[in-house]
């Protein structure tokens, strides 16, 4: 979509409508961001790169990147991976579509704390799940699904899945079913219809969905504290940033960690968006992906 500005056109006043929003974003998003970036190069002591040097040489700081990725990537892949086939199944209108869609979306309202409390009660060592498993002798060992890696991962899936599902569903229903029927006319079975019609058209939407779901999982904070082991295996990067800012009052270091976090995030986003081009070849657009 290249800019098609007529030469010497009179100034279009409609363009002014975008100014308040743009101004707001520049003032409250770009300015703090740049401020934080500059602040991160002005450490309390040492040279300009001292904060970054410290981050990558301190033992409880640099591994947080890996810890966060180890939680966020599987959570996002599971969420998008399960949401895609379910949303694909729900794409046609039926009596159940609306009802099931609503049911699947409801967990959005739960909130991190309710999920955490619920998991501590339900998955806990004396919870219903463990009592049920012992009663039926399906599994006799102690289940450990809270206060560790798995607790945080499960809570990320519970809170992230509805969002991924909703987004993918709206992208899938935006694809004209006539295209799939045309393929069926030419002898494509359902699998081929999905592989050669839906998947390529969905690629931009899927990439977008993956990125948005990943942002949510990557900035995991409350559930890592409440459900995980915030001192050890689920010490994610946002905990490190928070501690620097509000426990050590080292805003320069906190900004540096925040910038590293944003940088890793943008690397993943860029990678996913470049992957999308590998799927998406034709000029046909199926929706507003």
């Amino acid at each position, binding site marked *: 979509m290249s800019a098609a500005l007529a030469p010497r056109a009179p100034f279009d006043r409609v363009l002014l409508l975008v100014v308040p929003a743009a101004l707001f974003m520049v003032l409250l998003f770009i300015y*703090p961001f740049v401020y*934080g970036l500059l602040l991160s190069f002005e450490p309390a002591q040492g040279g300009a790169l001292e904060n970054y040097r410290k981050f990558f040489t301190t033992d409880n700081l640099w591994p947080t990147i890996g810890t966060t990725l180890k939680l966020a990537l599987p959570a996002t892949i599971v969420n998008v991976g399960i949401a895609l086939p379910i949303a694909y199944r729900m794409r046609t209108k039926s009596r159940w579509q609306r009802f099931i869609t609503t049911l699947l979306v409801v967990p959005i*309202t739960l909130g991190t704390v309710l999920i955490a409390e*619920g998991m501590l009660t339900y998955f806990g060592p004396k919870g219903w799940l463990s009592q049920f498993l012992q009663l039926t002798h399906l599994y006799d060992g102690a289940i450990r699904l809270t206060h560790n890696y798995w607790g945080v991962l499960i809570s990320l899936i519970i809170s992230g899945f509805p969002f991924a599902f909703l987004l993918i569903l*709206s992208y899938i229903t935006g694809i004209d079913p006539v295209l799939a029927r045309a393929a069926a006319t030419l002898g494509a079975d359902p699998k081929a219809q999905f592989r050669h019609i839906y998947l390529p058209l969905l690629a931009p939407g899927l990439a977008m969905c993956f990125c948005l779901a990943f942002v949510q999982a990557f900035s995991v904070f409350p559930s890592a504290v409440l459900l995980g082991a915030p001192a050890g295996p689920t010490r994610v990067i946002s905990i490190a940033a928070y501690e620097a800012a509000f426990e050590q009052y080292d805003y320069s270091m906190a900004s540096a960690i925040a910038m590293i976090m944003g940088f890793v995030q943008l690397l993943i986003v860029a990678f996913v968006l470049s992957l999308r081009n590998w799927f998406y070849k034709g000029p046909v657009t199926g929706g507003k992906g």
Partner: protein
Amino acid sequence: MPEALAASDPASALPPGAFQRNTPWSERVWSGLLWGVMTLFLVNIALMIAAVATNSFARRWLGTWLPQGWTTNWYVDAWKEFQLGSVLWVTVEVVFAVVFLALLIGVPAAYTLARRDFRGKRALMLLFLLPLMVPPITYGIPLATVLYQTGLGGTMAGVILANLIPAAPFVILVMTPFIEQIDPNLESAARVFGANTARMFGHVLVPLLAPGILAASLLVLVRTIALFELTFLTAGPDSQTLVVALYYAVFAAGVRAPQSVDAMAMIYMVVTLVWLLIALRFVNPTQLVSRVKEAPQPGM
């Protein structure tokens, strides 16, 4: 699916869903697997909510199937102890201010992006997309620093401004496709009759956009109630919203009975759920990002 059309066109005898009559077994296994995963997910979530609900009414509940007695005292407790009345009022004020302001700056911007092509449009889109693509903590920490320097940190205004950062782009993202569907001829007609931009907005666009605006505002509302990080970073003691108050209640768990926290969590869920259900009544979730094409449109 339009039945008449499928019937009149023998070549397209395979509308989606019709292949289920003579499906191969692999297809059936796959379908069963999907239903299984869905059921497992929903049943566990339902039980999880039930566990919190049970605990919030429980007198004493340790290692048995059901608690030893029932009480509603925890709700009374939570209301008094956490000053829920004032927390809820702050939440309402923040959320409605955010929704109103996000619509106020978001809808006109979405209009321009939907209707005009101009130099720098791509950069502008990126500017609006970026806040949704960057983790809230990344810009939240520098933002909190800036807000505290200007004296806005810890105040209600600061919390509202911080929450607007993801809310306004979200409105733009949802509203742009809605506006694109409206026939520009209607606007031209209004112009011909001498309406200026403000009147055209008030009398033509806003009524036509009402469903979209309603959908966007309800979604922003639900998202803002749930947005933890930015409020957490910018709120002071008397500008906490429900999520943040809830987090502090759990974090300082030693002092408080877990039942009391659970009662508060239930109140939180009910508050959000009511709004979400209202939202889902007005907007089909499938129409969020793009419209459903139920029938082939002539001239496509």
